[in-house]
């Protein structure tokens, strides 16, 4: 068993080394200087550039996962809204004898996909980050109170 596991480890090691070598060809979106700056701030010391790339790629993977989750939330809502509107149109269509103008061009794809705080907080919650965002900010502590009590 030792020999087989030894060989297995050998394969794993070689796979890892190959992967690290392939990292040098891949340019992550997060630049190396930025990653090195934050790693040195947190005490990480390694002169090997491949490890820096590994950290950069890991961070990029994390952020892209969060972003794709948020995108799913946005798209699901848009699909929901789209299908609701389709249903309403069908109901209208049945009520009136004349066929309404079918605007097939109104697809959910035409609507711009916007990253909002709500979708982001939901996506981050899946990954273990709790993000709370104020819905609105008031100008003064008295905003929204009764006018009688506001005059004090």
């Amino acid at each position, binding site marked *: 068993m030792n020999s087989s596991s030894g060989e*297995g*480890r050998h394969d*794993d*090691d070689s796979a*890892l080394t190959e*992967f*690290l070598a*392939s*990292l040098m060809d*891949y*340019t*992550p*979106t*997060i*630049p190396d*200087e*930025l990653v090195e*700056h*934050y*790693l*040195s*701030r*947190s*005490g*990480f*010391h*390694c*002169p*090997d550039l*491949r490890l820096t790339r*590994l*950290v950069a*790629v*890991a*961070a*990029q*993977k994390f*952020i*892209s996962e*969060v*972003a794709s989750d*948020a*995108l799913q939330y*946005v798209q699901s809502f848009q699909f929901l809204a789209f299908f609701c509107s389709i249903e309403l149109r069908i109901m209208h269509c049945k009520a009136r004898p004349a066929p309404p103008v079918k605007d097939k061009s109104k697809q959910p794809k035409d609507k*711009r*996909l*916007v*990253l*909002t*705080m709500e979708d*982001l907080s939901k996506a*981050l919650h*899946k*990954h*273990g*980050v709790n*993000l709370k*965002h104020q819905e*609105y*900010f008031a100008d003064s502590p008295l905003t929204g109170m009764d006018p009688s009590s506001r005059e004090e």
Partner: protein
Amino acid sequence: MSDGGRESGTDNQTSSKKSKVSGGDEFGRAIAKIAVTQICGSTGFHSSHHSALDALTDVAIRYISDLGKAANFYANLSGRTSSNVFDVIQGLEDLGLPQGFSGASDVYRCLASSGVVQEICQFVSTSVEVPFSRPVPRFPIARTPKQIPSFAHVGEAPAGNHIPDWLPAFPDPHTYIRTPVWNERATDPRADKIEQARQRRKAERSLLSLQQRLACNATAGFMPAIAGDAGKGKQIVTNNPFLTPPLPHGEKEVSEIVMPNEDADEKKLSVLETFAPAIEAAKRESFPSLISEERVLPSERPHFKFGIHKKSIVVPLSSETRNAKMDSWFLRDDEKDDKKRRAEMILKGAMENPQELAQL
């Protein structure tokens, strides 16, 4: 990606809070924001809220810092100061535990074949390579601080055998010893008094010459309306004629304003001629004797030509006097000191006519 929406709220407060929170890491944060925005764009978003991008940037920076911290801890745990790939993989496993990865439950798992590494391999092979949009310089830039020169550098002998000369030199004694400063000049009270009196006389003379120059200047001489109060019953004793209350309409009879013809032959009165008696009085310096005299005004308003052209200061004073009684124009208050009155008149004339001052 463009700005997709507006946020309500006090932008000033949030921006000032942001600057306090970041604490000087603006450059790194800005670059991280650009990188995160690029990642979101490649994922498929068209636009985003500012706050969402900022939050995601914060999360990314925290992720990188936490990963570095975890890797450093694992290296220290193994008795090393510099981390290696296994420390990083263990750090990744720590951060990926909430989400889960394959093989997390194996107790004796091999790090090289860890689930996180395989996931990253998969990610690298499937994702589209989006390099950072701009070149990033090395940062932070470390400035070498200015070093204090050593004893050997300065050439001093250190103050004691126990101090080697390659240590930084001591600061100069004047930085920590207070030496009193004495006035070395010998004082002579009599000479000081004489000097004081001489300077006072000099000042008086220069004031007088200034007044003469102002008076003899032929450009517009707008004297304060002291004469206006002369006709009234009430005498308001004030220092500043401009602060006296205005006359109600019709109380004082004033002559009609006759518009001057543009006739060159017509003799125009000059300030010089009109105020010649005043100038005479100033020359004679005999103010106290003119208190009781009445003030006499010309029946018609003299027309002054407000010329802007410069005139030579060196103009001989006109010796003709219209009326000796006009000397009293300058007098307001006979209790005042002689010098004070003179200085006041000069200052008034100087304030009213900045042109003369410019010429001087």
